[in-house]
C-alpha cells in the first residue's frame, strides 16, 4: 500500500515535468520559433550531458547519493585534456596526432587522475556517512577553487592555452585548432530535413550506458548495488560496504572525467576556472528528474532525466526570451531559475521514503 503511493508520487513528479516540457514545446511552436533548430540543439545537448548524468548512477547505486562532487572528475578530465594539448605542442614536428588520437590521449591521461582522486574522495565519503550530499557539494566547490590556483601555476607551455601576457592558462581553450571541436558530433552525422543528428556523440553515450549496464550485472556491480540499497544486508552477505562505496565513487569520478571531455568537444572549448563550478547540479537535477531518488537510480532514470531536463533547458530559454525580448539577459536568468527550481523540486521528491 505504502509502496504504491510512493511509486505514484515519483510518477507524478515525472508527469509534471514531462507536461511542462510538452507545454514548452507547444509554446515554442505557437511562437513560431525554429523548431528544427530546437531539436538539433536538444539532441546535441542531450549527448553532451549524457555521460555526466550517467556519472550519477554508480554514486547513487553504491549508496553515496547523487554525486554533487563530480566536479572532482570534471577537473581530472580537464587536466587530461590540457596534458594532451601540451603533449601535442611539445611533440610538434616529431609526431603529428590526429584529432581522434589526441582525444583518446586526453581520456587516457585523465584516467590516472580520476582513479587516484576517486579513491581519496571515496575514503573521505566513507568517513562522513549520512551527510555525503552536503560534504560532496563543498568538496566540489573547494576543488574548483583550488584548481583556479593550479591553472595559473601548472607548467603548461603551449601558447594555444596560455594567456598572451602573464602566466597561467586561459579561461576557455579552443579545441578547434587541433580539430577536436565537434569531433564526435560530426562523426557519421546526418540530416533529417532541417534537423542534424550528432550520430557519433549519441553512439558514444549509448556505448557508455551499455558498458554501465553490463557492469551493473557483474558480480562487482551486484555487490555495489546491494551495498547501496541495504548496507546491513550487504555486510551480512560478506560484502565490504566501504569498498563498494569507493568503487562507486571512483566510477562516478572517472565518468565525470570522460564526460567533461565529451562535453567539451561538443562545446568546442575546455572551460577552466569557474567552468565546472555548477555543472554537478545540472547532472544531479537531470537524474532526479528522471525518477531517481537519493537512494535508488536506474539506467532508465538517467536516460529519461537527461532527455527531459536538458530538453527543457534548450526549449525554455528561447520561449522565455520571446516573452521578454526587451531584456537581453533574461535568457540566462530564466535558465538559472528553471535549473535551480527543478533541482529544488527534484530534491523534495527525492527526500527518501
Amino acid at each position, binding site marked *: 500500500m505504502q509502496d504504491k503511493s510512493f511509486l505514484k508520487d515519483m510518477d507524478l513528479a515525472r508527469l509534471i515535468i514531462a507536461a511542462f516540457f510538452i507545454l514548452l514545446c507547444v509554446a515554442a511552436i505557437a511562437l513560431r520559433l525554429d523548431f528544427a533548430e530546437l531539436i538539433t540543439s536538444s539532441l546535441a545537448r542531450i549527448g553532451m550531458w549524457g555521460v555526466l548524468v550517467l556519472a550519477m548512477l554508480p554514486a547513487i547505486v553504491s549508496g553515496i547519493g547523487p554525486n554533487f562532487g563530480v566536479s572532482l572528475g570534471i577537473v581530472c578530465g580537464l587536466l587530461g585534456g590540457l596534458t594532451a594539448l601540451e603533449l601535442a605542442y611539445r611533440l610538434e614536428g616529431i609526431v603529428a596526432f590526429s584529432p581522434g588520437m589526441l582525444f583518446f590521449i586526453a581520456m587516457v591521461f585523465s584516467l590516472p587522475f580520476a582513479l587516484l582522486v576517486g579513491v581519496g574522495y571515496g575514503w573521505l565519503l566513507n568517513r562522513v556517512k549520512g551527510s555525503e550530499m552536503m560534504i560532496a557539494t563543498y568538496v566540489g566547490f573547494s576543488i574548483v577553487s583550488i584548481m583556479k590556483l593550479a591553472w595559473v601555476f601548472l607548467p603548461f607551455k603551449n601558447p594555444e592555452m596560455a594567456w598572451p601576457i602573464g602566466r597561467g592558462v586561459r579561461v576557455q581553450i579552443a579545441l578547434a585548432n587541433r580539430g577536436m571541436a565537434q569531433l564526435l558530433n560530426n562523426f557519421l552525422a546526418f540530416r533529417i530535413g532541417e534537423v542534424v543528428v550528432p550520430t557519433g556523440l549519441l553512439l558514444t553515450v549509448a556505448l557508455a550506458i551499455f558498458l554501465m549496464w553490463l557492469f551493473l550485472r557483474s558480480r562487482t556491480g551486484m555487490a555495489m548495488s546491494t551495498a547501496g540499497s541495504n548496507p546491513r*544486508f550487504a555486510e551480512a552477505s560478506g560484502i565490504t560496504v566501504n569498498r563498494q562505496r569507493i568503487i562507486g565513487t571512483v566510477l562516478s569520478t572517472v565518468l565525470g572525467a570522460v564526460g567533461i571531455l565529451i562535453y567539451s568537444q561538443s562545446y568546442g572549448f575546455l572551460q577552466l576556472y569557474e567552468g565546472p563550478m555548477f555543472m554537478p547540479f545540472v547532472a544531479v537535477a537531470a537524474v532526479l528528474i528522471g525518477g531517481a531518488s537519493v537512494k535508488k537510480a536506474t539506467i532508465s532514470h538517467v536516460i529519461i532525466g537527461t532527455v527531459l531536463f536538458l530538453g527543457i533547458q534548450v526549449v525554455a530559454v528561447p520561449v522565455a526570451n520571446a516573452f521578454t525580448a526587451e531584456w537581453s539577459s533574461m535568457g540566462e536568468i530564466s535558465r538559472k531559475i528553471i535549473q535551480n527550481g527543478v533541482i529544488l523540486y527534484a530534491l523534495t521528491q527525492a527526500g527518501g521514503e
Partner: protein
Amino acid sequence: MAVEPVLRMKGISKSYYGTKVLDSVNLSIMPGEVHGIVGENGAGKSTLMNILFGMNVIHSTGGFEGSIEIAGQPVQIKSPLQAMALGIGMVHQEFMLLPNYSVTENIKLNREVLKPNLASRIFGPRLQSLDYDKMYADARKALKRLNIDIDEYATIAGLPVGYMQFTEIARELDKEHLRILVFDEPTAVLAESEAAHLLEAIKEIAAAGIAVLFITHRLNEIMEVCDNITVLRDGRHVVTKASKDTNVIELAELMVGRSMEFAGRKQHYSHKGRPILEIKQLTVDMPGERVRGVDLTAYEGEILGIGGLAGQGKIGIANGIMGLFPAAGDVKVAGTPLPLNNPSASIAAGLAFVSEDRRGVGLLLNSSIEVNIASGAMFGKKEFIKTWGPFSQVDQAAVRENAQKLIGELDIRCTGPRQLVRQLSGGNQQKVCIARALTMNPKILLVSEPTRGIDVGAKQLVLDTLRRLNEELGMTIVVTSSELAELRSICSRIAIITDGRVAGILKPDDSDVNFGLLMAGQPISKGA
C-alpha cells in the same frame, strides 16, 4: 467491602489489526495494595498499561473494549496527560529524564515552583522565576521517602542507572495527587542491592496508601513485595491470586502454560550426531541483547532451540557467530575454529543466517524475489556468476531457475520471481529469507525469530518448513525464538538464555515449571 478499589479495569480487550492481544482482562486494586502482573513477552502487560495510561498508540489503532473506574468513578482516559491528572504515575523501563538537568529539575520538570518577580508583576505570570529553594526542598522530601541518598543538585548525566531509576520514582512521588504508581520492569537494569532497596521503597510507598502496580519477570521479587498477583498469558487473564496462596513454581507454570499443540513433534530426539557447532565462552556486544559468556554445542542433524526472555542475550548468539556484532570467544564449526567478526568467513564455513531483523538485515526490499534468493550464494560463494577473466555477468537463467524451484518447494505466494520482496506478506518474506539461506547450501542453518510478525497460519508453515528441512535433508538448525511454545514444538533440545548465559538446557517435554524457573533466573533444583 468498606474500601472502594482505587482502580478497577473490567473486561479489557484490545486488537491490533485483527490480532487480539488482550481478551477480557480484569484488574482491581485497593489503595495501599502492591499488585504484581507477570507474563511472558507478548502476554499483553504493556498493552494493558498503555490502555491505563491513555497512550496514543491505543487510540490510533481503534481504541479498546471494556471499562476503567478510578475510585469508583468510570473514566475515559484519552491521553497520558489526563492519566496523570487522575493520579496515575508511571516509572518507565527506559528512563524519561533530561540528562543535562539536575535531579531536582528533573523531578520538578513542568511542575516547577514559581515565585513572582518584577518582570512578572508587569508582564504577567509567564515570566515568574523558579523558586529553587522550595524545589530543592520538595525534591529532598521525595527522595527521603525512598530512603535514598541522592544529591538533589547533581546532574542526571553521569549518575549510576539505579539513581536515575530512583529519580524517576521520586518525580512520581512528588506529584501531590498520586493514587496509583505503575512500575514497568523497574529492576531490569538494577544491580541486586539496588533492586532490594527499590523493593523496600515500594513497600514504603504502598504503606502511604498509594496503590502500586508492579510488572516484572522476576518471580521472587513479585513474591516478596506483592499482596496480589495477576498472571497474563497470550492476552488472557489466567488468574489473580493472593501471593500468600501461591509460590514461584506455580507462577512459573501459569506464566508459561501450553498454548500450542505439540502435534507431530519428533519423538526420538535422544540420538546425537557428532558436535558440529561448538561455542565456548562467547561474548557478543549487541546492544540490548548482550551475550556474556555462552557455552553451547549443537550436534549434527538436530534442531537446537535457543529461548529466553527479551533482552537476555539469546538474539546476540547467532548475530555474534555470523560476525554482525563484535564478538569474542571460541567457536568451532565441524571441528575447525571459526574466525569471528568476519561475515565472509562465517559464510565460507558453511553457516547461513535468517535474521530476526527481516526487513533490516534479512532482505533487499526493493529487489526482486529471485535476486534476494540468489544474493547469499552470489556474494558468499560466487555462484550464479559467469566469469571471463576479470569480467563477470550474473547468470540470469540460473538465478531464475533456482528461484522458481524454491518458490515451488517453500510455497512462496507471489506473482512470480520478478516480484519485489517488499510487496510480499510477512510470512512469504520469511520464506524468501529461508530460501536465500538454503541456496547457500549451509552445513548449519541459524534462524532467529522465524515467526516474528507473521500471522498464525503462516507461523505453522514456517515451522513445518524448518522441521521438513531437518528431517528430509538432515540439516542442523539452530532456532532462536522468544516463543517457547514454538521451540518446544520443533526442537530436540532447548537452551534457555538468562542474563547473557545459558541458564540450562531442557527437553521440549520438560515441565512448564522448569522452563518458567530458568527464564525467571531461578535454578531448577531450588523448587523442583
